[in-house]
């Protein structure tokens, strides 16, 4: 009996694992994340251009040997900056990196540029590790997982080029279809799981602090003059409201990894992410961080819903570009079924 239970359990786990990770998926969501994450990566690295010499030049804030001793980095951290010091070469590589990220955002040679984008992202991050914050960590995970699948399968120049090439072979009324991909599913699944880890430990870390228990943490956050971008001091007279916001935040983060999976609770969890991260973006001055967290949350949005929203303007005049014969009502039906 025990043997049978163990056998059934193993078979069930194996089947679930297989279904979860290896079911081919429509790459629509994955491709949308490529555009948004690519744009964020491009912006993040383009901003370095403004103070490139201060951070990467001959006399930077953080010399390479100091960064390599910093507690943020492990012994196997790497960066091309560790080996290259020639200024003109560093500038050349910098503009090459920006060009790669722009191509990746647009979906040009996306399989290659995705890998290069990830390598550049890690390389820059390891050079200036003490100057990083949450934005860079999420940038890194998105860049990593976008290397796993065909992130340029939809909404990309690659797609447009392929359509043009296939268009000569196919009848004019039949656009080329999208191929469901295991790689896209794998990339999405790993973004989802990684986001769960991020929120779980963000929540558990907060539970070690007194202010997240006594309800004052939200006040302490908005009372930071250095973070503040909108004056929220009116909250000083609303202690009950700040306490509720504090508890909802920590509860939401700690429970995210559980409640984001069931169909019924997922919309609630994702909807709560919007005010939380937009709040961080608008009130605490971390626009990039707030947005990149929302991009990560996008991994939980079904491809059908992504298509319904993204392709809506395109369908107004013609048939959806990536879906042969897909009508608006069919798309809506599919979106409704997914949620």
């Amino acid at each position, binding site marked *: 009996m025990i043997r049978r239970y163990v056998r059934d359990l193993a078979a069930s786990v194996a089947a679930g694992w297989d*279904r979860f990770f*290896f*079911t*081919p*998926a*429509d790459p629509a969501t994955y491709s949308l994340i490529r555009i948004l994450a690519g744009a964020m990566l491009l*912006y*993040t690295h383009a*901003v370095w251009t*403004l103070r490139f010499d*201060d951070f990467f030049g001959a*006399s930077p*804030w953080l*010399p390479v040997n*100091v960064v390599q*001793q910093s507690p943020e980095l*492990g*012994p*196997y*951290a*790497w960066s091309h900056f560790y080996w290259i010091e020639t200024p003109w070469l560093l500038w050349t590589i910098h503009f090459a990196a920006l060009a790669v990220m722009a191509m990746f955002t647009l979906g040009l040679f996306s399989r290659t540029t995705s890998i290069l984008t990830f390598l550049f992202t890690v390389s820059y991050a390891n050079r*200036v590790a*003490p*100057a*990083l914050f949450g*934005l860079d960590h999420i940038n*890194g*995970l998105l860049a*990593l997982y976008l290397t796993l699948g065909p992130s340029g399968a939809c909404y990309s120049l690659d797609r447009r080029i392929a359509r043009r090439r296939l268009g000569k072979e196919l009848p004019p009324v039949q656009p080329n*279809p*999208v*191929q469901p*991909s*295991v790689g896209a*599913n794998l990339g999405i699944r*790993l973004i989802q799981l990684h986001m769960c880890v991020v929120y779980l*430990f*963000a929540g558990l*870390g907060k539970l070690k*602090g*007194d*202010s997240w228990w006594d309800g004052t943490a939200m006040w*302490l*956050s908005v*009372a*930071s003059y*250095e973070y*503040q971008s909108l004056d929220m001091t009116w909250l*000083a*007279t609303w202690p009950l409201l700040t306490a509720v916001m504090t508890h909802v935040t920590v509860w939401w983060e700690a429970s995210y990894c559980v409640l984001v999976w069931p169909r019924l609770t997922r919309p609630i969890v994702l909807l709560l992410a919007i005010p939380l991260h937009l709040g961080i973006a608008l009130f605490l*001055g*971390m626009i990039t961080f707030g947005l990149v967290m929302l991009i990560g949350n996008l*991994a939980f*949005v*079904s*491809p*059908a819903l992504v*298509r319904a929203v993204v392709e809506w303007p395109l369908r107004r005049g013609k048939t959806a570009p990536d879906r042969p014969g897909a009508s608006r009502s069919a798309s809506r039906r599919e979106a409704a*079924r*997914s949620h």
Partner: protein
Amino acid sequence: MDPRNDNSSSVRSISPVTMSRRAKLLVSAWLVLHLAAVALPPLWVLSGDSGPVSAAKRGLSWYIDPMFLNHGYGFFGPDPGPSFLLRCELELPDGRKIEQTYPDLKEHRPRLLYHRHFMLTSRLQFGRASDVTTLYARPYARHLAERYGARHVRLFLVRHELARPWKVAAGMKLDDPSLYAPMPNLMIDGTWTAPLEAAPGPAPPGLRAPEELGPPRAAPSSAGRAGTTSPAVVTLEIVLDRSRQAGEIPRPPGGTASLSNWTGRGELVPLRWEEHENEEDFVFYAADPELPAIVAHRIGMNELLLRLPMEAGERLLIMRRDELPIAEYPENTP
């Protein structure tokens, strides 16, 4: 979970590409490794560097580090705390002074650039005169001196406390002056000293015996510094961290000597020494682990000469961590 209800509710326009069983096994093995690598670093942070987690993380660092997974994700945790600002005073060769605060919302735009500088100053908050502070403060001072061409840099770490809500409700502003507290123990007063004229012959790596160094020389002008091409020797004053006891002073590997009987009064008054009267030479281990050990040679009853070999063209930051008024500092300099 039923994949049809999830992201895989995809368009089956054409046949999907599937994986072979062998490929799935290989990918599954990688997934197990990767997911462990994702979870271990934040678990390590949360568990306070516990033994088994630490060992596991160390064992996987060959994967965690290159993949950029070494993060704790402790956003605003465990408690949102005060901010740390770096206030610097720069003295230019022509006597002009520049005062700057980092980060500066007006200067550091866009906001992302502001946060980069904010992270730099936030790194200085970890403990009193800790190794991390020492690690970062010195290159910060060096960068500022180079950037502005300053000959003297003073860095002050300022702690900006968070206003309590009842005080704000009573009219206090978040940037009320009473909320800013300079941290004297972390104050850094640095002078960029020019390397002296080239020492005869190539300088050997590491320390030279005090008797080889000869008497102290006058400091040259900054113009002479730029033209130095061979190894030079400069005098160095260094004040060791008074908050440490002798046994806590980090020692570089291979150190062969130490200060015995180091007392609570052990901070070194610049080039003056009132204890250990019977000893001639000392070896000091600086709080900055990057700094080599320093040989001190007694040249007078209450005076020590400290020498440090320097690379050609390298500038040296003189640091002090005592609480003496800054104005007295030049008077103590020989």
